C-alpha cells in the first residue's frame, strides 16, 4: 500500500512537471496521434490490395495496433525510465535511488514521464473504437489487455536494460531489442511458423504485447486470459529477479547527484 501511495506521488510530480510545458506536452501528444494514424495507413493500403493474411484482416490489425500502441504509451507515461534504465546504470545514476528509502527499481523506472506516450495511449483506444469490433464489454477487455501487455513490455525493457550490469554499455542491444519487440507486436502472428512463434512468446515476447491481447479483446476465453496473465506475472517476476541480481554487481564512482 505504501508503495502505491509512493507511486501515485511520483506520477503526480511527473505530471506536474510535464504540465509546466503544457504547449509542448500537447504538441507531443497530438503529434504522436497523427504519427500513429499516418503509420497505420500502411496497413490500410496493404489490406486494400491483399484482402487478408492467413485469416487476418484490417479489423484485426486495428485492434492489434491499438493494444500495442496503448501498452507502449502506458509504459512511457508511468514508467518512462524503463527506456533508459541501462544508461542510468552505466552513468552511475542509480546512486541517487540507492540513497533513498524506497524500492530502487520502482523508484528509478517511475521517475520519468515521456509526454508523447499520452498520444500513443489515446491512439490505441481510438484505433479500437474504429476497428469495427467495438463493444462496451470489449472495451473493458481492451483496458485489461492493455494493462497486461504493458506489464509484459515494461518487464521486457527492464530485463534487456538490466543486462547492462553484466555486459556494460548495451545501448545498441537495447535499441535492436526494443525495435524488434515493437515491430513484431504489430505484425499478424499467422505469418510465423511454430519455431518463430516460440521465440515471439519467450525471447522477444511480442505476441504477448500484440496478438494475444488483441485476441482477448475480440473474444473472451479463459485460456487467452490465463496466457496473458501468466505471461505478465512471469515476465514481471523475472525482470525484478534479474534486476536485483544485477544490482549486486553495480558499482559507481559515488557520484550522488540531484535528480531534477
Amino acid at each position, binding site marked *: 500500500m505504501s508503495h502505491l501511495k509512493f507511486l501515485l506521488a511520483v506520477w503526480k510530480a511527473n505530471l506536474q512537471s510535464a504540465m509546466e*510545458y503544457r*504547449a*509542448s506536452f500537447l*504538441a*507531443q501528444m*497530438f*503529434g*504522436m496521434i*497523427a*504519427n500513429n494514424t*499516418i*503509420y497505420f*495507413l*500502411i496497413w490500410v*493500403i*496493404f489490406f*486494400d*490490395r*491483399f484482402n*487478408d*493474411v*492467413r485469416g487476418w484482416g484490417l479489423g484485426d490489425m486495428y485492434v492489434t495496433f491499438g493494444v500495442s500502441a496503448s501498452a507502449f504509451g502506458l509504459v512511457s507515461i508511468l514508467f518512462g525510465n524503463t527506456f533508459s534504465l541501462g544508461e542510468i546504470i552505466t552513468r552511475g545514476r542509480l546512486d541517487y535511488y540507492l540513497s533513498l528509502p524506497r524500492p530502487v527499481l520502482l523508484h528509478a523506472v517511475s521517475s520519468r514521464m515521456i509526454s*508523447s506516450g499520452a498520444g500513443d495511449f489515446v491512439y490505441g483506444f481510438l484505433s479500437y473504437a474504429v476497428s469495427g469490433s467495438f463493444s462496451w464489454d470489449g472495451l473493458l477487455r481492451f483496458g485489461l489487455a492493455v494493462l497486461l501487455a504493458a506489464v509484459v513490455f515494461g518487464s521486457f525493457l527492464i530485463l534487456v536494460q538490466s543486462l547492462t550490469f553484466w555486459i556494460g554499455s548495451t*545501448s*545498441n*542491444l537495447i*535499441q*535492436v531489442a526494443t*525495435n*524488434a519487440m515493437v*515491430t*513484431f507486436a504489430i*505484425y499478424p502472428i*499467422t*505469418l*510465423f511458423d511454430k519455431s*518463430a512463434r516460440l521465440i515471439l512468446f519467450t525471447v522477444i515476447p511480442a505476441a504477448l504485447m500484440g496478438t494475444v491481447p488483441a485476441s482477448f479483446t475480440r473474444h473472451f476465453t479463459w485460456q487467452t486470459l490465463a496466457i496473458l496473465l501468466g505471461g505478465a506475472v512471469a515476465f514481471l517476476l523475472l525482470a525484478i529477479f534479474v534486476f536485483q541480481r544485477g544490482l549486486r554487481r553495480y558499482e559507481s564512482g559515488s557520484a550522488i547527484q540531484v535528480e531534477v
Partner: protein
Amino acid sequence: MKKYWAIFKLQLANGLAYPGEFIGRSLMILPFMWIFYQLWRVTFEASASTEINGLTLQHTLWYLVIAEVIELSRPRVANTISDAVKDGSIAHILSKPYSFLGYHYSSSMADTVFRALLNLVLGGGMAWLLVGPPPSLWGFVVVLPLLLGAWALNYCIAALIGLLAFWVEDISAFQWIYQKLAFILGGLLIPLNFYPTWLRTIAEALPFSAMTYAPASLFVSPTLNGFLTAAGLQLLWLLLFVGGLGLLYRRSVTVLTVNGG
C-alpha cells in the same frame, strides 16, 4: 570544397574509431528484413502467383533492402541542429570559416555512407540467403548516384525541421510526421506498385518517392529512361529544397541571440 572534404574525412575517421557502435546499430535491419520476408512470402503464396504488379518475391525483398538502407542510413541532423540552436552551440560553428549547413552536411554524410555500407552488407546478405542474389548487377550502378540524391534531399528536409527550433520549443512532432509521410508516400514498407492508382499518382508527384521508391525500384529493374527521370526529379526537388533551406537559414540567423562567450 577542400574544407568540407576534410570535415567528411574527419567524421568518417571518428566513425571508424568505434566500429562496434555502428555495427550494433546496423543490426536493426536484420529483424526488419526477416519480418518483411515472412509477410511477403505469405502474401505471394496467398495470391498463388510468382509475380504481382510486375514484382516477384525476390524483387520485393531486394527493393525493401535498398529502401531500408536509405531510411536507416539517412542523415539525422534535425536533432543535432535543433540542439545546437537551443543550447547556443550554433554560435561556435557560426564563428568558423565554413558554412553552418555545409559543415553539418559533410559531417552527417560521413555517418550516412558508413552506415549505408554496413546496412547493405547485413540486409543484402540476409536477402541473398532468403531469396537469392539481386535481380540485376546494373542495379548497383544505377542506385549509387540516386542514393546520393536521396540523402541530399533528406538532409535538406531534416535541416529545415531542425531550424524550426528557432521558433518552436520541440521539433519531435515535425520529425515523426515527416518520417511517417516518407514511409507512406515514399513506399518504404510497401512498394508503390501495390498502391491504388490514385495514391500512387499523388505519391509520385511528391519528393518522398524520389527519395525511396525511385532508387529502390530502379535497383531491381534498372532502365536508362527510369534513371534519367528519377535523377531529373531529384534534381528538381533539390533545387527547390536547397533554395528553401537557404532562405530559412538566412532568416534564422537574423533572429539568433547569443549571450556570453
